[in-house]
Every structure is written in structure tokens, then in C-alpha cells.
């Protein structure tokens, strides 16, 4: 076992009354991947921000390559060889891929940018991530979230860092890119780097990590080698109790159609001729690769993106125009882009949760000042948001708790149709299971839930039916138990509507 390349000792950090970190000890070894796991708000991101020089700890010491390490800012940390890929993407949306990658590392001769050299280095970095074909001149804001993440990771590759931290890197990556990322991580460790990997996906942690460290309520509660622990042991370390059910089942029966979309085609061609019916009391999953048009589909349904042709109906009648009309017709939407679109990070939980429906909290245009806080208090309790209270600024919450606030809005709005775009991204096991239960309860109350996710196992476990999209088209909708991971993947990558029998034949053919 190699000696640690980096150790953190007794690190503490308070935010006002919140103890984010309480004397944490962690060590990362060269050539190995350390999994840093824990519930939402456990302090993982804070610990890594301390490491990356973005947050100054109240107490504690760090050692990096046998010498004391105390970065006085992110630039110092980067110069020392610590690279960080944050949970919330940190890119300038108007700048091109190349400019984002080179920001702060511009190559110049006599003050003039040497474009060719820059471009070559960017291409090389993207190549390493399996994205050599990405046009480096595209403004980052125009790329889908998944690709934006790749750009973010390419930044660390460019730095040739010796400690690389990934804060939930795969939460917005499709399978194939996740595998490509794992390959990159292996390249990094093979070159002797220490990688710290934060994730809520335990399978993934198993697949890529060697060691683990568990945080709970700001304390390190366990660490060691992954091969010595079982999954349930890890989970109970994380939550401090046994999690009874990962996929709680709330009995519900689908009824008559509530949301009907017919030949819906977006202004820019995605989705293309999508027809779908979501019934009362039904959870309908939408699967597919990133870029398949799932987000475009829900945005078109919600009236956020322009539509070329086709209709959307709720309860057989057309809903109001635009998001405003949709909300009034009982449709609620959770955006996949939490920080950019879903939330007002500088405003309070109460303001964020209630913005979509202020009418019951006001009279004649005048707000009842206490009402939003009271409403939010109920939502915080219902969803188990870890926060000081309804007046806390959303930007101060941990990623998973921010997501819960975004989801709380559809509850407050009392919507009958829920459009959830990647709602489980970045939330912990316990919170995921809470969210599945919430969807189940909504279905049991006769609501229609459209659930977009890149994580097929959850779709297969909680949905009644699952639709698969491929290249802008809704290829197939089937009962969840009629899909397998293989058929869904084959359909998603464009092999057409692959039924279980066909794959069975195909695999049989291949093995024979």
C-alpha cells in the first residue's frame, strides 16, 4: 500500500450556526481512487472546496507530497497540482470551448494569443476524453449539459494535476461518456495521480474506486478499502441507520389519459412527431441518451420552447400558452439545469418554493408576509430538506437539498401533471427513495408523472411504463417490465424498437 499523497487532518468549517465539517481526517493515495461518500449536506463538497483553496477552513492541516499544504486561493491550489471539477458547472457560457479551457492558462507570445498551439492542446485534452470531434469554437452555453461537463473535465486534464477531485461528475453524463470518464480516471491513476471521487451511485463507486471515506453530518465516520465492505454496510455508514427500501412502492392504478401529446414537433426539429399519453395515476419514464431530445420534449410540452406543429392537451383540452398558461392548467416542471434555470440561488427557500403560486398566499396582489414562510416550512418538513429554515438562501444549501427545493415547487403548485427532468440528479440514496415515494404518492392521488432520467435502473423500478427516445424521436413506449437494460440501450442507440425476443435472438446468434 503506497503512502498517502495527500492528507487532511482535523479539518473544520462552520457557516454561521451550521457545522459543515467537524474535525475530518481523510487521506488519498497515489495511483488510487478514493470514494468520498455521504448523504446530502454531509460536507463532501465543502471538504473538497477546502482542498481546492476555495474555502478556508476554521481549523485543520493538510499535507501534500510530504510538505505542508495550505492554498490561499483556487489559483494557488491549481498551481500546486490540485484540480477540481465542481458539482455545479463553472464555465463561462458565452465563451467558446477553447476559451473556457484556456481561461487563465492562455498561451501567448509577446502578449498575442497563439491560437494554433491552444487549439492543439484543447483538441488533445478532448481527444483523451473521447470527444475529439467537438468543435472547440462552439460557445459553451449552446452545448447540452452533458457535453458541458466534458469541457469542465478537460480543464483538469489540461492541468496535468496530481490530485484530481470529481464532485459528482457522472450525474449528468450518459453511460458511454461515463465509461469514457472511467477510462480517463484510470489513465490518471496509472500516471500516479490520486483521484477523489464523490458520487451518490454506489455501483459506480464500486466500479471505479479503490478506497472509501464516508462523511456524516460533517464527520468522517468510516474509511478503508472498498473490497472489505458490502453495499448495505456503506449505506448504513452513510445514513446512520438501515435504509429499508431503495425503491418504495406506493400502490397506484393508471386511469384515463390526463396529458396527451400528439405529433409534437419542436421549432428546431426536436422532438420530432412525438405522440404520448400519460394517464392519471401513472408514472411514465423517459429514457434515452443525452442529446436524444428528452429535455427538448418536456420543454416543448411545458411551452418553454417553441413548437412547429402538434398539440398538447390536458384533460382533453388545450392548456394555456407558455409556461404561465401551463402552470395554470396544472402542469408543473422541474428543470434539469438546477443552478441556471431551476432556482434563484440568491433568494430564500420560501421565495423559490412559492414563486409559481402566490395566489393563495396573497389577497388583491398584497402578500401575506408570513404565508410563504409557513408554506415553505411545510415543504421543508415533507421533503426532509436539510436547512436552517424557510428564510435560508438556497445557494447556501448542499446540491441535493437545492434539488429538493426545486422539486418542492410542483407540490406547492398542486400540479396534476408533473414533468420531472432528471429530478434525482445529485441526490443521496435516502433522498432518492423519498422522491420515488413522493412520485408514487402523486400517482396514487391520480396525478400524471412524466419522469425523465438517464439512470435506467430507477426508471425500470419506479415507472409503470417507460418510453425510449432516440435522435429526437419517441421510438417505443412499453410497460416497464417489458424492458431490459439491453433492449432499452439498443433502442436508445438507434437500433429501432428492439423487443425482448429480438435481443434474445441476437445474443443467441452472437454466442453461437
Amino acid at each position, binding site marked *: 500500500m503506497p503512502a498517502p499523497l495527500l492528507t487532511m487532518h482535523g479539518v473544520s468549517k462552520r457557516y454561521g450556526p451550521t457545522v459543515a465539517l467537524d474535525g475530518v481526517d481523510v487521506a488519498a493515495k497515489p495511483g488510487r481512487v478514493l470514494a468520498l461518500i455521504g448523504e446530502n449536506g454531509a460536507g463532501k463538497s465543502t471538504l473538497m472546496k477546502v482542498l481546492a483553496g476555495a474555502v478556508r477552513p476554521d481549523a485543520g492541516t493538510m499535507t501534500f507530497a510530504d510538505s505542508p499544504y495550505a492554498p490561499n486561493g483556487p489559483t494557488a491550489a491549481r498551481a500546486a497540482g490540485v484540480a477540481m471539477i465542481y458539482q455545479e458547472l463553472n464555465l463561462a457560457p458565452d465563451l467558446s470551448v477553447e476559451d473556457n479551457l484556456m481561461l487563465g492558462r492562455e498561451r501567448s507570445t509577446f502578449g498575442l494569443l497563439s491560437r494554433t498551439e491552444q487549439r492543439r492542446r484543447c483538441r488533445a485534452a478532448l481527444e483523451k476524453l473521447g470527444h475529439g470531434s467537438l468543435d472547440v469554437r462552439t460557445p459553451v452555453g449552446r452545448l447540452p449539459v452533458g457535453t458541458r461537463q466534458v469541457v469542465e473535465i478537460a480543464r483538469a486534464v489540461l492541468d496535468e494535476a496530481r490530485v484530481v477531485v470529481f464532485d459528482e461528475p457522472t450525474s449528468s453524463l450518459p453511460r458511454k461518456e461515463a465509461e469514457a470518464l472511467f477510462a480517463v480516471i484510470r489513465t490518471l491513476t496509472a500516471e500516479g495521480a490520486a483521484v477523489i471521487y464523490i458520487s451518490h451511485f454506489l455501483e459506480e463507486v464500486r466500479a471505479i474506486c479503490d478506497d472509501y471515506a464516508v462523511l456524516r453530518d460533517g464527520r468522517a465516520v468510516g474509511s478503508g478499502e472498498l473490497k472489505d465492505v458490502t453495499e448495505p454496510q456503506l449505506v448504513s455508514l452513510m445514513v446512520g441507520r438501515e435504509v429499508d427500501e431503495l425503491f418504495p412502492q406506493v400502490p397506484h392504478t393508471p386511469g384515463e389519459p390526463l396529458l396527451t401529446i400528439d405529433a409534437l414537433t419542436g421549432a428546431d426539429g426536436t422532438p420530432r412527431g412525438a405522440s404520448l399519453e400519460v394517464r392519471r395515476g401513472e408514472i411514465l419514464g423517459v429514457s434515452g441518451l443525452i442529446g436524444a431530445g428528452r429535455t427538448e420534449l418536456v420543454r416543448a410540452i411545458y411551452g418553454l420552447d417553441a413548437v412547429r406543429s402538434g398539440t398538447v392537451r390536458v384533460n382533453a383540452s388545450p392548456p394555456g400558452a407558455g409556461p404561465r398558461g401551463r402552470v395554470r392548467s396544472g402542469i408543473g416542471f422541474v428543470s434539469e439545469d438546477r443552478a441556471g*434555470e431551476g432556482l434563484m440561488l440568491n433568494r430564500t427557500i420560501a421565495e423559490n418554493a412559492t414563486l409559481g403560486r402566490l395566489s393563495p398566499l396573497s389577497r388583491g396582489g398584497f*402578500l401575506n408576509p408570513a404565508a410563504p414562510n409557513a408554506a415553505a416550512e411545510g415543504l421543508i418538513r415533507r421533503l426532509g430538506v436539510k436547512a436552517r429554515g424557510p428564510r435560508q438562501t438556497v445557494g*447556501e444549501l448542499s446540491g441535493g437539498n437545492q434539488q429538493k427545493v426545486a422539486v418542492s415547487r410542483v407540490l406547492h403548485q398542486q400540479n396534476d401533471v408533473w414533468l420531472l427532468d432528471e429530478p434525482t440528479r445529485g441526490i443521496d440514496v435516502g433522498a432518492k427513495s423519498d422522491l420515488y415515494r413522493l412520485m408514487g404518492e402523486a400517482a396514487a392521488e391520480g396525478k400524471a408523472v412524466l419522469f425523465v432520467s438517464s439512470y435506467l435502473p430507477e426508471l425500470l423500478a419506479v415507472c409503470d411504463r417507460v418510453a425510449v427516445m432516440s435522435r429526437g424521436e419517441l421510438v417505443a413506449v412499453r410497460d416497464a417490465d417489458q424492458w431490459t437494460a439491453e433492449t432499452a440501450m439498443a433502442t436508445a442507440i438507434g437500433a429501432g424498437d428492439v423487443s425482448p425476443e429480438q435481443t434474445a435472438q441476437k445474443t443467441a446468434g452472437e454466442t453461437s
Partner: protein
Amino acid sequence: MKWASFRSALTTAGPALALIGIIAGFAFFDWQQDGESTFLTVRNLRVMVQDVLPVAVAALGMTVIIAAGGIDLSAGTMLALCAVVLAASLKAGCSAGTAMLLAVACGAACGALNGVLIASLGVVPFVVTLGTLGAFEGAAKIVAEETTVRPGRDAIPSWLGRLTSIQNDSLVLGLPGGAWVLLGLAIAVAVVLRLTVFGRHLFAIGSNEKTARLCGVSVGRTKVLVYALGGLLTGAAGVMQFSQLNAGSPTSGLGMELQVIAAVVIGGGSLSGGRGGVFGTLTGVAIVAAIESGGFQLGWSNPVQQIALGAIIVAAVAADRARARSGG
């Protein structure tokens, strides 16, 4: 909980502490210079209030606009246009009430025009209002026929002139009447910002326009209303200015928008939107007024005052950033 409320109290108190410091500083140096303070006197306070009334009223409007993530560079020339409209209507024989209504309506219409252009063209407010800045000045010159409009003494009702007068017989409870009008408007704007659905919507647009849209806020309509409300207050500021000058000059508002924006920013309004409040803005206005008056008492030249004000703006924004960064 306690800590949070303490911290938010500190955030709002920051500009107020700065104001106290600035006043104390001027009072001290002034006292050192002449052996007695002419700065810290009731009379000087009245003069300061009198001078700053137009900027103060316009700053209330700007607070609304900046909180909604916008900016109005045309506020200065719009103010002059409204003052000219008031002067011209009085000269044409309108009753004082009608003339005032016209001036304020002119402001609201100009603001609404800004709002419609911003909402419908999707051009950033900075550019749109840079354009209307020139347009409003041109309009004011047309209305004023390129001179200063002076309605006769008897066309101006005495109460309109007294609004900003510090003559003993026109004071109301020790201050010019306009100060109480300002207070009333300030309370009204504070209520709009904090206690109405419209206020929630405009802060939402200022914080994250995409979220506002997602939550069904009618962004375009709200923006038009925001700029119209800002314009209405600018119109009221024009009335104040007319009351000071007893005349309407098409160029009397040039550069005033900078003082107005400065007051809002010093008071904690954020040019990236989503932050700003009446209390902060009034504090910012008071700081602007104190620097002008205190600098004058100490014999600072105009350029020196300008530099001092510039320094305060930068310091205010820097302090604000530092507070935001320290977090938690």
C-alpha cells in the same frame, strides 16, 4: 436563527454605518477648520434635503428597476423632459393639478416605452435606455423649443414652489414639504417591493429570469410595469426639480442618472439584479448628499467631490462583494 438575522441586519446597516462615519468625518474637519460646525446644523440639513429631493425620488424608481435586474440610463433626461412638460403646461394655462399629472404621466409613459422596447426587442436595458436617453433629451428640447421654459410667477401655485423651499413659513414639521412626499413615496415603494406579488415577481426576474419564466411569471408584462413605475417616480422627481428651479430646462437632468444609480448601488442595490431596497437607497442618497454638502463646506472643488463620490461607489461595491464572499 439569531446569527442569520444579526448578519442580515449588518448587511442592511453597512451603508448606514458608512453614512454615520462620513457625517462624523465631515463634522469633525469642518469644526477643526472654523472652530464651529456649519455642517452639522439644522439649517444645513434642510439645505441638503432641499438639494437632494429630485435625486432621492428618482432613486426610488431606479431601485425598483435595478432590483428587477434592469438599469435606466435615460432617467436623467426623462426627468428633465417631465419638468419641461410641467413648465410648458403651466405656461399654456393648465391648472397646477393637471400640469403635475401630465408630468408624472409623461414619466410613466417614457418608462413604459423603455419597458416595451426592452421586453419586445430582447435588447439589453443598458443599450435601450442609452438610446432613449438621447431621444428624451431631444423630445424635451422640442417641447421647450430649445430654451428654458419659464411660466410666469402667477402661473406657479405657491404650494408647488414651497415643496422644496426652506423658507421658515414653508416648512412642514421642520422640513421642506417635499421631504414628507419623499417619505410617503418611499413607504409606498417599500410596500410594493416587499409585500406584493408584483414585488416578488420583479425580484424573481432580477435574480434569475429563467426561473421566473419557468414559474409562470409574465416576464414581459412585469418588466413593462417595472419601467413604467420607475418612470412615474422619475416624473415625480421632475416635479421636485421644477419646484426648485421654477422653470423647466431640457438639459437640467443631464448626468443626473449617474448620481441616481450611484445612490442605489451605494445603498446595496446590485447591478446584476435581485437586490436592492428602499432603506438602503435612501441611505445611499444621504451619502451622496453628505459628500456634496460636506465637500462644499470644506471648500472642495467640484472635481474633488466627484472623485470622492466615485471612491465611495467603488468602496460600497467592494464591501458588498467581500460580504457576499465571506458567505454563511
